[in-house]
């Protein structure tokens, strides 16, 4: 799914990475516990979260998250935004709650772990 489609489905606002809205996302994960996210995230993954601190951006960099969507209209502070700009990670804000966002994207075909790369990784190991 292209990020522009995600933006349309969630009526999201792009607050960082306007030049990256055409990137392809292949899976998604949702949650507010970063260690949990580190266990099941895969490449080209979209993160939906209510956390807005800079650690979200660091976590995104560690596991190569494609983009981050802040739910329930939450907006990151200047520090988080600056770090995302440096790391060139797209940030989106939607007014919808986490559960609803997850349902909409899942129904539209964006699942947790369907990426081609993940399947290839599994074959390698």
């Amino acid at each position, binding site marked *: 799914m292209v990020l522009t489609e995600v933006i349309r489905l969630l009526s999201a606002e792009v607050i960082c990475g306007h030049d990256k809205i055409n990137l392809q996302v292949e899976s998604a994960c949702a949650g507010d516990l*970063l260690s949990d996210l*580190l266990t099941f995230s895969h*490449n080209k993954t979209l993160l939906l979260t209510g956390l807005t*601190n800079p650690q979200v951006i660091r*976590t995104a*960099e560690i596991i190569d998250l494609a983009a981050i969507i802040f739910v329930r209209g939450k907006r990151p502070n200047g520090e988080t935004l600056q770090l995302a700009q440096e790391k060139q990670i797209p940030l989106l804000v939607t007014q919808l709650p986490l559960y609803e966002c997850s349902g909409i994207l899942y129904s539209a075909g964006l699942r947790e772990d369907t990426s081609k790369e993940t399947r290839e*990784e599994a074959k390698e*190991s």
Partner: protein
Amino acid sequence: MKNGTNPEADRDQKICLSFNVEGGNFLSAGEASIRLKHTLQHIGYPASLIRRVAVAAYEAEMNIIIHADSGVLKAEVTPEAVTIWAEDKGPGIEDIGLAMQEGYSTAPNYIREMGFGAGMGLPNIKRCADIFEIETHVGIGTKIRIVIFNKQKTN
């Protein structure tokens, strides 16, 4: 190795990295692990291995920042494996068995509000590691050794 790295040149390749990690300094939390990750990307390690190293190092680095006074994150990178040592001066772990249980955490509330303290740190490290060793002394500190083998190299 992937990405066209010359195996002949790899034979003598050994990179050692060392980072001081300050307890309570959340501003730079993750920087050491990200630099280790970039080093591995630069020398062409497989992406799946880099992910495991990055997650293990990041959890170990965060553990020092969350729980300890100070510490060091060290890494030795060879074509065969990545070894990470995380050594801290801090409270130590009273019950390692409990600390290894998924969901068990002693992190205070303000840490949980940041998204950490889910009780997944040590279990995550163990899951990513081929070898995981931990030595802890209450009131002194904790030492962790993680080895992740580059299986694509040896196969």
